[in-house]
């Protein structure tokens, strides 16, 4: 679709759309205004300049980027299989991928505990063999946020792969490119914008994850306490700290999302 064509689309949107869209924007804007209204601006720096906040920030950064990395490494192949391979039970696998979106995160965290905890189905043999305990460690945080956020990557990339014109892959194959080369040099660049969008969504979900993390990985400052957990704890004691932390999260997320949307995700 050329730029000229899109600019010649319907110039006047339906009035009902404008009104309803405005309602939606206000709906998103109001909580932000509430947050800003309660922000203790004068104490902001001192509230955020604590070791607990710094630890939570670092942990959230590590965990969210680890989640994006793991989701990409295993999620892209999964999306490819779902989009391209016709196998029995594909609908079931796709439903399984959707599960973390449907499950309340706390339940997801408990389920992870039952599976990968020290007494879990898989966790117990793992613990007996290696002494590794996943909960109450940074590994637990990474596992919890990855579990909850990976569906965004898989769904986005699968959709993109379905829209790829497979004739280009055939063209590459006819030129002697094997499966991996075709994927790397043709398919991947074609789904690039969608992959980036999926990674950003995954990151956004990971950075905000609370329920599964606190249930599976627990809450210990400097060990497993991510920013959302710090916010929750702060909310119990000092609302100013909670507000300041929330504002920090909003600022980080908006920066990343707006920058990426503009730089990476601009439609070709």
């Amino acid at each position, binding site marked *: 679709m050329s730029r000229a064509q899109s600019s010649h689309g319907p110039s006047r949107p*339906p009035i009902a759309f404008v009104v309803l869209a405005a309602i939606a924007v206000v709906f998103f804007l109001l909580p932000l205004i509430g947050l800003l209204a309660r922000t203790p601006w004068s104490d902001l720096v001192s509230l955020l300049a604590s070791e607990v906040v710094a630890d939570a920030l670092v942990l959230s950064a590590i965990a969210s980027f680890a989640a994006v990395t793991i989701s990409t490494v295993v999620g892209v192949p999964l999306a490819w299989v779902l989009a391209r391979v016709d196998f029995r039970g594909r609908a079931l696998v796709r439903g399984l991928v959707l599960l973390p979106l449907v499950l309340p995160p706390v339940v997801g965290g408990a389920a992870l505990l039952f599976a990968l905890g020290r007494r879990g189905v898989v966790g117990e043999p793992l613990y007996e063999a290696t002494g590794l305990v996943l909960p109450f460690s940074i590994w637990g945080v990474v596992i919890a946020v990855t579990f909850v956020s990976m569906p965004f990557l898989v769904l986005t990339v699968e959709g993109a792969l379905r829209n790829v014109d497979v004739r280009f892959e055939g063209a590459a194959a006819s030129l002697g490119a094997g499966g991996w080369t075709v994927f790397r040099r043709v398919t991947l660049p074609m789904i690039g914008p969608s992959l980036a969008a999926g990674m950003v969504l995954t990151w956004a979900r990971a950075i905000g994850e609370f329920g599964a993390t606190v249930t599976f990985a627990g809450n210990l400052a400097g060990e497993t306490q991510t920013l959302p957990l710090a916010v929750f704890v702060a909310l119990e004691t000092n609302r100013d700290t909670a507000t300041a932390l929330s504002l920090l999260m909003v600022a980080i997320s908006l920066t990343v999302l707006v920058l990426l949307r503009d730089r990476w995700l601009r439609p070709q």
Partner: protein
Amino acid sequence: MAASTLRYGRLRVVSAVAVIGFLLTSCGGSSDASDEVRVSAASSLSLAFAALGSAFEALNPGVDVVLNIGGSSLLREQILEGAPVDVYASASTDTMAPIVDGGLSDGNATVFVRGFLAIAVPAGNPAHVTGLDDFGNEELLIGLCDVVVPCGAYARQVMSRAGVEPAVDTNEPNVRSLLTKIEAGELDAGIVYMTDVRSASGGVEGIEIPDAVNVAADYPIAVIVEGPNTVGGRAFVDFVMSGVGQEILAGFGFVTP
């Protein structure tokens, strides 16, 4: 053509606004306030208050007790932000203080029950925990409630009275999630309310904490003046303080103050 499109558009807007308005009114004020009592109660009170609510409803036909269960601090924040609640039952006097200080309660809060703490271990006590001294063992996986919630603050008082520096592996946001991890065997021991041990199904065993170091958790209750049904709220609080109410609470392991 343009005019008819416009009119069509406007009709749609009107109907959309009407639908939203209808939803708002039907959510907000459909029921008569006088037959509904809204009670915000701390997580650790959930089972006891469910029983109290049923009993109160049985004694007052036509009255509905609506429970809002959550962490004491969360419930307090809701009330401070103007949640339409008639009664607030908290797990600590500290949590209740801002409500009373802020003039949101009808008079002072009353301590209606007291709870004591206990050590909780997974069924079978796999780590062979015997007492508070084990909480200092780095080898064990120890969980407490976070210091910002009452059960966490009480647990730390117990610890300091016993002279033990706990090797904490996780600070859980509420008793419920601490119990979940103990039941699952992921934690070797934690400190919870005795009532929790008693009401937990087979997955948890309790170990008593000596009276000398144990802490009495005072549970205050108050009627919220800005609530939609303060009369109903006062009636409910009176019922909780009554002999019948105290008997029900005792059945869940609580002690009359």
